[in-house]
């Protein structure tokens, strides 16, 4: 068995500014055979390593079937992500992964699928959108509900028209009013409140964003008739080893790095509202 601590060298082949403080880095493993072998499932993450500063767990925001290119959309939040933000195309960093559980795209066949994202939370869901676009016939109605604190936080906004044209509806909201914003104002659950749901029993919802947002999204979804077993959330805790051996990311009985980050809502619902767990 290979050593789970072994890092691989990855080169930044493209860097795109997104929303304020957020950029997408397309990485490519420098080793040919590793590059060909690398595969991930939507919702999984990599550990990205800046020598001397450490690792950060970053979800993969790319297309699972696009070989060799591994995009990560990263917000500057701590030492490591701050250091990554100063890197440019051609620079290399370390990578371990992919790790963790994934969104249940295999359960989406012939179902209405709703993605609910808050801010940077759209990044781990983007691989599901790529899957919808590639396999549009397999899904029934595809809807993305996207909320941000203000309109400047609408991640991947320039892609929304393309997604809509290809059959993935996108509804957006801003938590606060803003100059020049004529769209919906209010938290993302207000979009879910009003979303036409002809067949909630067959709907499947995946959500990623702040924990409190995901909690209220799940409550709204249940109130709209979506089963708890058809709701999936992606949780976040301090991740250090990514292989279930360091203890940091524990949440109740779960290690978020290997049992998560994606959980079926009913598996974590009872512990989500216990403070400081």
């Amino acid at each position, binding site marked *: *068995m290979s*050593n*789970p*601590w*072994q*890092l*691989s*060298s990855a080169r930044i082949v493209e860097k795109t500014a997104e929303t304020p403080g957020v950029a997408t880095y397309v990485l490519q493993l420098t080793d040919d055979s590793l590059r060909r072998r690398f595969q991930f499932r939507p919702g999984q993450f990599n550990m990205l*390593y800046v*020598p*001397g*500063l*450490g*690792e950060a767990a970053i979800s993969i925001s790319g297309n699972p079937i696009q070989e060799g290119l591994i995009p990560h959309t990263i917000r500057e*939040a*701590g030492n490591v992500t701050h250091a990554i933000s100063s890197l440019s195309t051609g620079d*290399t*960093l*370390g990578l371990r992964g992919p790790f963790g559980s994934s969104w249940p795209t295999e359960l989406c066949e012939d179902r209405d699928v709703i993605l609910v994202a808050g801010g940077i939370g759209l990044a781990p869901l983007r691989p599901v959108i790529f899957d919808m676009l590639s396999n549009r016939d397999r899904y029934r109605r595809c809807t993305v509900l996207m909320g941000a604190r203000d309109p400047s936080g609408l991640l991947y906004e320039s892609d929304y028209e393309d997604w809509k044209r290809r059959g993935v509806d996108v509804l957006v909201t801003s938590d606060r009013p803003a100059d020049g914003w004529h769209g919906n104002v209010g938290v993302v659950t207000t979009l879910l409140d009003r979303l036409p749901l002809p067949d909630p029993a067959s709907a499947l919802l995946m959500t990623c964003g*702040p924990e409190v947002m995901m909690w209220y999204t799940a409550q709204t979804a249940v109130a709209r008739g979506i089963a708890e077993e058809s709701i999936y959330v992606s949780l*976040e*805790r*301090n991740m*250090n*080893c990514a*292989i*279930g*051996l*360091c*203890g*940091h990311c*524990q949440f*109740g*009985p779960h*290690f978020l790095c*290997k049992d998560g980050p994606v959980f079926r809502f009913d598996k974590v619902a*009872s*512990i989500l509202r*216990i*403070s*400081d*767990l």
Partner: protein
Amino acid sequence: MNQPATSDVWYFPKDGLTELIRVLQEDGFDVIGPTVDQGAIVYASIQSAEDLPKGLTDIQEAGSYRLEKRNDESLFGYVVGPHSWKKFLFPPISVVAAADRIEGHWEFSTPEEPQRPFAFLGVRACELAAIRVQDQVFLKGPYVDPIYQRRRESAFLIAVNCTQAASTCFCTSMKTGPRCQSGYDLGLTELKDGFLLEIGSERGQQLSRSLSLRPTTAAEMAEGDLRRQQAADQIHRTLETDGLPNLLKQNLRSSHWDDVGRRCLSCTNCTMVCPTCFCSSVTEVADLNGDHINRERRWDSCFNPEFSYMHSGIARDSIPSRYRQWMTHKLSSWHDQFGTSGCVGCGRCITWCPTGIDLTVEVLAIREAAATVESVDRGTNHE
């Protein structure tokens, strides 16, 4: 010389221990055993039986440990101290990976430090159980820790049956002792003038062929039984494990966490002395020019606030929440994660807590509070 068969019990006199240690050394083992340092019995490299604590015993209570002279020459007349074998199998500091800047590019490696195989002399029943628990964590999951694996697979385990217990021991509640049942290569019981030796593995059998053993007498067997029974008889502390994982899951909002949180200093002692706690953090250690970096894994503790740090804040930012995390992990969620309790009943966390917090007492308090609530408002969901 006699050729022992696997299940038999053999006898060797006290000075046979010198021979045992010498044979292990000749086989290339770094022999680790109990020694006295700073007023406590700790595990360290030993050269001969002379290094073992002779005629000493330990007096342990909640928040208290001291060594006293015995009125005999016993070499293993005490129980467990602040060290456990975890220190050798899962070292407090180890390099998991390294990065080297070569001509402007980073190259990554996972260095393998040469390590003499260990022979552990004096592994108690609760410690065999603790090693089994850590095997489950580091070797049996989807990812294997290569540092633990290398050290564990080559280690030679010589168990010693306890012939007495401390007031903090509760291995009988956790069904881990005091008798060493399996998981060792050789098993010893110390008698007045010698040792009973049991063979627990093929490796143990092979090594025993180099030892001067003779069959036991009925009197020696009886003396061994008596001494081992004495340890069992001295254990009075109990931890009721029946329904314990669920009890804690149903009492995550108990006010008792605040009560124990007021007494807990969050000092991490309990997690450092615990033979099963495995939390760690990797930190970056760079050379002066920053061209060579060791990724050092160090023991960490869920009692450190920054252990649960996220950019949005510290997940467990209060002592009650951290004590709850430690205890519910150890006694409840460990079962979900690894199919076993994380507690082996060694009592170290009780002895080495500077404020004398005793997890068996805390569990009892939660159990009794839950029973009271249940009888008051039966039928409501108070999760």
